[in-house]
């Protein structure tokens, strides 16, 4: 296990972190770099739950928003320092994950839609006019927090390392193996003595916490925001598409997805926005037709063929 873990982290995680750490000296749109890390964390967080338990939460953005609001409400109502508020953001998402854990009784599209409804419900609770005194309601929040782009970027990379480290560990550990067995055939896995529910719950909560932590960092980097901004469904959609494009259940897949698709999103969005939907649509169609298991499956196929 240790050998595989070291190999994967050395080949994927380490170079990625080095590149991300160096990028601010090469490219000065730091917000774009932060957003890349945000989507890397979201894609890997989604990878935790989808790649290892088979549950695809369309409402994943709910945890991101819970983290952003956990951070914001901590700063608004207490004298806590921002770093502690980031942790509270993670805890807020963890609690939301616990509350929504019964959704794991559903499967397939039912689970996906229920999670989406839950995220929308959470958004409407926060945007509720009657809770304006507490949450800012529809008027959003303005945080009196120092804008620290270098710190927030570093923090985001730290969270990415934790999440990718967890994915790498799951890929190599017995626990991860049990999870994948339960994902592929829950009845057989349960018959073999695997605690299917426990495994699913662990990755579900880890996934929620990852989104919450990065949601908190995002809120720190954009200290004036509205519920629509942090519960924007496009966060879920992007995280899902990036993960599926690269390959769920792998360490490198979501990284490929973010680099290729988010890169294309920004390049096309800046240079030829009119063609953005077309190019993006074609890319995703090509993926579905030729690489249904994601681009990372190419390497597996080559290894098997060779």
């Amino acid at each position, binding site marked *: 296990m240790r050998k595989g873990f070291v190999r994967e982290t050395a080949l994927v995680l380490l170079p990625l972190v080095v590149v991300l750490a160096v990028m601010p000296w090469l490219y*000065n*749109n*730091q*917000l*774009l770099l932060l*957003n890349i890390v945000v989507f890397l964390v979201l894609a890997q967080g989604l990878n935790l739950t989808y790649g290892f338990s088979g549950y695809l939460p369309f409402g994943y953005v709910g945890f991101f928003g819970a983290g952003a609001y956990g951070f914001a409400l901590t700063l608004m109502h207490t004298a806590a320092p921002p770093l502690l508020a980031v942790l509270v953001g993670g805890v807020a998402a963890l609690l939301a994950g616990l509350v929504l854990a019964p959704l794991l009784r559903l499967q397939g599209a039912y689970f996906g839609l229920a999670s989406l409804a839950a995220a929308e419900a959470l958004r*409407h609770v926060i*945007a*509720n*006019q009657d809770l304006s005194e507490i949450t800012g*309601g*529809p*008027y*959003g*929040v*303005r945080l009196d927090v120092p*804008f620290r*782009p270098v710190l927030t970027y570093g923090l985001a990379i730290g969270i990415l390392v934790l999440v990718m480290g967890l994915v790498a560990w799951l890929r190599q550990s017995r626990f991860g193996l049990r999870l994948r067995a339960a994902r592929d055939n829950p009845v057989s896995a349960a018959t073999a003595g695997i605690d299917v529910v426990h495994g699913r719950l662990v990755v579900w909560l880890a996934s929620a916490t990852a989104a919450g932590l990065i949601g908190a960092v995002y809120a720190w*980097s*954009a*200290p*004036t*925001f*509205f*519920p*629509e*901004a942090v519960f*924007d469904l*496009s*966060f879920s959609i992007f995280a899902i598409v990036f993960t599926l494009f690269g390959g769920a259940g792998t360490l490198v897949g979501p990284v490929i997805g973010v680099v290729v698709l988010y890169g294309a*999103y*920004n390049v096309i*969005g*800046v240079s030829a*926005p*009119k063609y*953005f*939907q077309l190019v993006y649509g074609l890319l995703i169609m090509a993926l579905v037709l030729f690489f249904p298991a994601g681009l990372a499956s190419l390497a597996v196929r080559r290894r098997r063929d060779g």
Partner: protein
Amino acid sequence: MNWVTIARAITLALLVSAGAAEAADAPAEIKVGTLYAGSGAMASTSVPLHVALEYWADGLNKGGGVFVKGFNKKIPIKLISYDDQSSPALAGNLTNQLITQDKVDILLADSTSVMTAASVPVARDHKMLLWDVTGSSPNFFSPDNPYIVLLALAATDRYPKTIADFVKQQMPKLGIKSVALLYVTADYTAFQATAVRNALKETPEIKVVFDRGVPQNTSDYTVFVNNMLAAKPDAVLEFGYPANELAFLRALNDTDSKFKFLFTGYGLTEQNLIKSNGLAEQLHHSYALAGPGSYEFKVNYGLNRHQFEEAYEHWVTSHNIKGVEFGYNAIAGYQAGLVIERSLAVAESLDQLELRRAAFTLSGNLDTLCGPFVLAPDGSQSGEIAPLGQILPPAAGSKELGLSIVWPADLATAKPIYPSP
């Protein structure tokens, strides 16, 4: 050669070299960077505004550019626009792109508070003045942030004053005893609903029988219309964005419903859009804030409303731009351009705080299509508050809807017709 001649020669040489240096320092173009939503929920407000900015820049460039006092010459404008697709996350990136990669001289936010929010911290961090066109949330303005000015709309906590005053002072006189509130749960619309709700709290003779917030992406209002009909209110006040107004009016049309008193947020400001969707009849005898799209504020710089409407529509047609209607957002875009133009004519340099100072010199001195331009010390807009109008059916032989101003009393041209016939 005597001393006088030598002195003259030196002075001439200094003047020539100073002139040459000035010409050399002047940029070849003034880069104006802006975001707009070419698709998504904000497109209906953002696109007309962006088209108006293009019109403004095009007009200036045809005359040789914008006069910049700092260089004492006209310099062409280069409008750099990015489509943020109504995504706040992308808007933040693109704002950064405009500042760090394109190195714009003037930075404009996309329309609406939700989109503007993404640009505010980025602009502040880079010490770039954000020319905020319609992002009116009070959250953006604070005494410690000098890098923002609001151009074409009163801040949201000041804008609903007219309707709130009308509720308190006129509704009881009209015999209105119950009110229904329907609003989009976004900053701009919820603030207006709150202003009305607060006014109603001070008016105990009026009961709130329906009070519901709906998401901005609501496209079917049928259920809400039916619920309101069941509550039997004397007055309905609906606050939404243009796309919501269309959906709401369509629901009224489809259910053949009518209320005795109907207020809509964009009934006047986006009347052309509503007309082009075949819903003009639903506006008959309804009320709306008479923003600059319908009410003629006198201007002391630029085109008046009629001239601008004609010029804008001609420009849109000649550039083969489809689906863009003249309305408040078009005026907001044009006005933003005019304020920038006037500020550049006053600013001694392109330094961002100098540009802010220049914008403040216009405060109280510039009468715009949106009303008097008055900046509060924190950069928010205190002027540009619209009167309340009642939309009337077209007069005999006309196809145009009529309009009476019913409040405030000093601007009123007629008494409100209640109940709606």
